[in-house]
């Protein structure tokens, strides 16, 4: 038997080899390879994100502009359902059995199938069976629901825009895309982000900060406790509430007046730059762009030929028309090429004009909106005779003019607190040199004196111009935010921007603006409102796309103005006919809280340029 004793080594060797292989394997699995650690995390841990409530947005008087609405989904875990009373359940949710079967089937189908064609639906996992119950509807079923094991509710919140107005100010939210995820690591797939308007500009204030809870997951996927005594958990920080400068009543009223018209109304409080109304017409109900229905509705709005998604006050470039004569006159006086008492006769051979008495002063020029008057002012600005060469001379003059115009906030974005405002256009020497190959003089470019030609402005810039007139020479950057809870608003909204025109030169112009509205022969008699001392200036901008645009900028009252406004109505003809009365109604609404000029109001509201393009 001794001959077989060596065989103990074979047995020992085999045991040793096995132990050795096991040790190496354990070393690999537990220390070197991360695969099983990651798998363990996937199986047993759950990082639960707690979502903060998004900031609520109020108007200047505390009306809710943006609120959060709570919705409830009824979740079910099939494995946990017992003693299910179908009839009672159907009664509770007011559906019949066939519908319930269909809802269930839809829910299962929604989970998709794996590559082998097996459903991804798992009986031990929760799924939403009935979605989107309002708080009211849910409160009716809440107590009964507890009698159904395997069913429970899941709360979601969505944005709600209770005023149904101000879509272009408030903006909309949608799901983040790849670019957002890359740009800001705060976001995760499925998060919502403010895409336009206030929702976008104040996204970081509104969104708050997500919290994290590190939880344990048991084999059924249920949460079974926290990890490491919640040491690394963070609470969600709710978003900051915003108070906007907007006046919800005025905004809604502006949208009502602009119904059936294309254009913009922007009203600003001159003493602060606070935007009171911001109407882009046509508009849309902001509640259309919420939650799951956004995809379909967005497409419909995008395909609309009237472009309701287009933010006209910020992004539509129009000629300023005659309103620009205010700027021309002010610059002329500041440069000393004219004074306020200068008379110019209405020479229609220079530039076309309508019939009116001769303008004996700057104020008259404004009142009659005399084209030849401002033609002659502008010719003196451009051709100052500082050089004998007319071309060189015009360059000196225009360059000076350009700097003055820029100081009115024109030709550059105002950088208000909405994304996307465009600069508009103010031609400079370089531009004309390029277009006219350096051979140009005032006679080439004269149409800019009356706000035609190359000059392009946005309605927000025009409203800002109205503020400058109201303030007699300065403006605040127009803005929509009044206060942010627990945080100061940007300093740049509290900084006065002076024009390069001295305050004293504004008086004759403002006087002219008063007369435009109040005196016979003024171009905007329709803007006159008892007791409000409206000062304004009409504009009628020629444009290649059809009828002239009707423009009016105004402020009121004349002294210590409370509101400045710019109105653009596209293809509506003379400024005094449509834009002026709209502006005056807005002013009346804001200053008096109600409108008494019912006939005027009725005429505006009933006018629909889209169905009836005739002007009067």
């Amino acid at each position: 038997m001794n001959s077989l004793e060596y065989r103990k080594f074979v047995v020992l060797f085999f045991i040793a080899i096995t132990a050795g292989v096991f040790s190496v394997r354990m070393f690999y699995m537990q220390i070197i390879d991360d695969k099983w650690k990651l798998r363990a995390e996937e199986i047993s841990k759950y990082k639960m994100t707690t979502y903060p409530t998004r900031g609520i947005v109020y108007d200047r008087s505390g009306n809710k502009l943006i609120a959060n609405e709570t919705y409830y989904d009824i979740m079910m875990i099939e494995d946990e359902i017992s003693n299910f009373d179908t009839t009672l359940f159907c009664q509770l949710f007011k559906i019949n059995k066939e519908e319930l079967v269909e809802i269930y089937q839809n829910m299962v189908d929604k989970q998709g199938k794996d590559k082998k064609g097996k459903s991804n639906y798992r009986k031990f996992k929760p799924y939403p069976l009935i979605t989107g119950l309002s708080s009211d509807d849910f409160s009716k079923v809440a107590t009964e629901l507890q009698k159904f094991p395997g069913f429970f509710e899941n709360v979601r919140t969505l944005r709600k825009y209770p005023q149904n107005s101000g879509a272009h100010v408030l903006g909309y939210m949608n799901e983040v895309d790849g670019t957002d995820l890359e740009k800001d690591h705060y976001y995760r797939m499925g998060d919502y982000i403010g895409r336009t308007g206030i929702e976008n500009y104040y996204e970081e204030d509104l969104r708050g900060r997500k919290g994290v809870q590190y939880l344990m997951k048991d084999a059924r996927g249920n949460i079974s406790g926290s990890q490491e005594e919640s040491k690394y958990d963070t609470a969600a920080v709710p978003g900051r509430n915003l108070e906007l400068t907007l006046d919800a009543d005025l905004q809604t009223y502006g949208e009502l007046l602009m119904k059936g018209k294309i254009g913009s109304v922007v009203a600003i409080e001159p003493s602060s730059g606070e935007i009171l109304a911001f109407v882009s017409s046509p508009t849309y109900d902001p509640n259309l762009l919420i939650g799951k229905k956004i995809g379909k509705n967005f497409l419909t709005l995008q395909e609309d030929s009237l472009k309701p998604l287009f933010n006209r006050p910020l992004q539509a470039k129009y000629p300023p028309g005659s309103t620009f004569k205010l700027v021309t006159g002010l610059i002329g006086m500041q440069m000393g090429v004219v004074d306020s008492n200068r008379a110019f006769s209405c020479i229609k051979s220079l530039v076309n004009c309508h019939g009116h008495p001769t303008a004996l002063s700057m104020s008259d020029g404004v009142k009659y909106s005399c084209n030849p008057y401002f033609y002659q002012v502008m010719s003196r600005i451009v051709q100052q005779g500082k050089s004998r060469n007319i071309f060189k001379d015009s360059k000196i003059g225009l360059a000076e003019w350009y700097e003055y115009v820029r100081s009115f906030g024109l030709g550059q974005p105002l950088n208000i607190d909405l994304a996307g405002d465009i600069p508009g256009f103010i031609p400079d020497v370089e531009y004309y040199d390029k277009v006219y190959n350096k051979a140009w003089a005032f006679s080439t470019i004269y149409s800019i004196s009356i706000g035609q030609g190359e000059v392009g402005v946005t309605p927000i810039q025009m409203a800002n111009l109205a503020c400058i007139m109201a303030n007699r020479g300065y403006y605040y950057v127009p803005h929509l935010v009044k206060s942010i809870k627990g945080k100061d608003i940007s300093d740049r909204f509290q900084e006065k921007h002076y024009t390069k025109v001295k305050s004293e030169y504004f008086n004759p112009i403002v006087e002219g603006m008063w007369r435009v509205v109040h005196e016979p022969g003024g171009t905007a008699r329709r803007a006159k409102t008892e007791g409000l001392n409206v000062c304004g200036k009409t504009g009628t901008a020629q444009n290649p796309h059809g009828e002239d645009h009707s423009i009016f900028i105004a402020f009121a009252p004349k002294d210590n103005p409370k509101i400045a406004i710019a109105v653009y109505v596209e293809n509506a003809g003379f400024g005094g006919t449509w834009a002026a009365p709209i502006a005056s109604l807005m002013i009346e609404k804001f200053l008096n809280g109600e409108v008494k000029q019912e006939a005027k109001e009725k005429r505006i509201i009933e006018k629909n340029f889209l169905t009836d393009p005739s002007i009067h």
Partner: protein
Amino acid sequence: MRKNETILDNIDWSLILLYFVLTILGLFNIYSASYNEEFPSLFSFSQEYGKQIIWIAVSMFLGFIVLLLESDILWKYAYWFYAVCMLLLIAVLFTREINGARSWLGFGSMGIQPSEFAKLGTAIAISAYISNMNIKLQSQSSAFYANLIVLFPMALILLQPDAGTFVVFTSFLWVFYREGISYDFILGFILRLIPFVDHTRIKIGSNFIPLLIVSGILVVSTLLLSQTTIQFFGMTLPGFWGLIISISVFLILALIVARITVMLRERKKLYYILIVAAIASSSLVFAVNSVFDYLKPHQKERIELFLGLEEDPDGKDYNRNRAMAAVGSGSFLGKGYHKATLASPQQGHVPMQSTDFIFCTLAEEWGFVGGILVLSLFVVLLFKIIQIAERQRSTFTRVFAYSIAVIIFYHLAINIGMTIGLAPVIGIPLPFFSYGGSSLMSFTMMLFVLAKLDSERKNVFR
């Protein structure tokens, strides 16, 4: 003079110590693996840890009895023990199925698993049979009866069915190997069917067993490599060619070594054996690969799943996947006692974490260090048992020692192997660690019987 020596003087205390260490570690591991917050005390007898304390006490009591009894009883009544175990195995087949198998013989709420005791009974019977064989034990009938003693319980266990215990019974092959029981009579029977081979000239004897194991390793390796390719001198070859190349290289090296070290007289025979072995192994590899390619997709899938080549982590592969995640997440030092997040009763990710998958809790809470420590203790135990086996003058004791060594080894290899993805998932307990009275009592008695027999090594010659 020897008569005055007590059992205490001759007993191998290191064996007893190892037993205590493993059992106590096992108890504390169960305390974590099936911990219930409502019963925080270790001595909560309604809980598995409390019950295990009772089982440990019962087991130790039985062990103590064993030490007091006359060891003559063992070999005198060896077949009676065996017979009782077989009767229990038959009886269990008439019980109600629990979890798809008839393994429990119940007495009220208590129950025993006859298959656990059958290992001990079979070990005693085999020891008795082999020690009673005379020197001409290579006779065909002796080998036949020895195998029959093992095959009979295996058949009964297959009827339960209990795949794990069935596999454990194959460990007796190692005992036969050590004792030189020849399988030539079976091989001859097969080889007779192959033409041009003179079966009478083939004398493999009990080397059949290691050959079988080497063949098994070759088969598994071939299957593992079946879906891979290798690069060999710029050629892209199917993976199994790697095995052929290895065999060829091994053959060449072996021939060179043989030429240098072996005497000319012996060399020719050795060359012959080496070449035949290499050709046989290569043929096996080819054959397995061809058969595998010929299989239908669903059959392939089952084999791949069995080998861990294809993963179905939430389906068929659930248990192994969770077990491996638990072990892997233990890292170097583990998560700490009572801090498992996968192999814990509260989370329930690892199924049967207090019985078949008990090693997961250990490896997760004590990490690589704890796992290696326990593995080492087992290896020390096994080496100790084999050391004891080899110092016996009594064949009975030696055979018995080898039997329990390989039984424990198989339990260890399969139980730990399945939690680290190196063995198929077949449910068998980890000795001294898994919760359960039957297995603990059975393993305890195995060790105490051995200790008793060993303590008499000096005065018994049988």
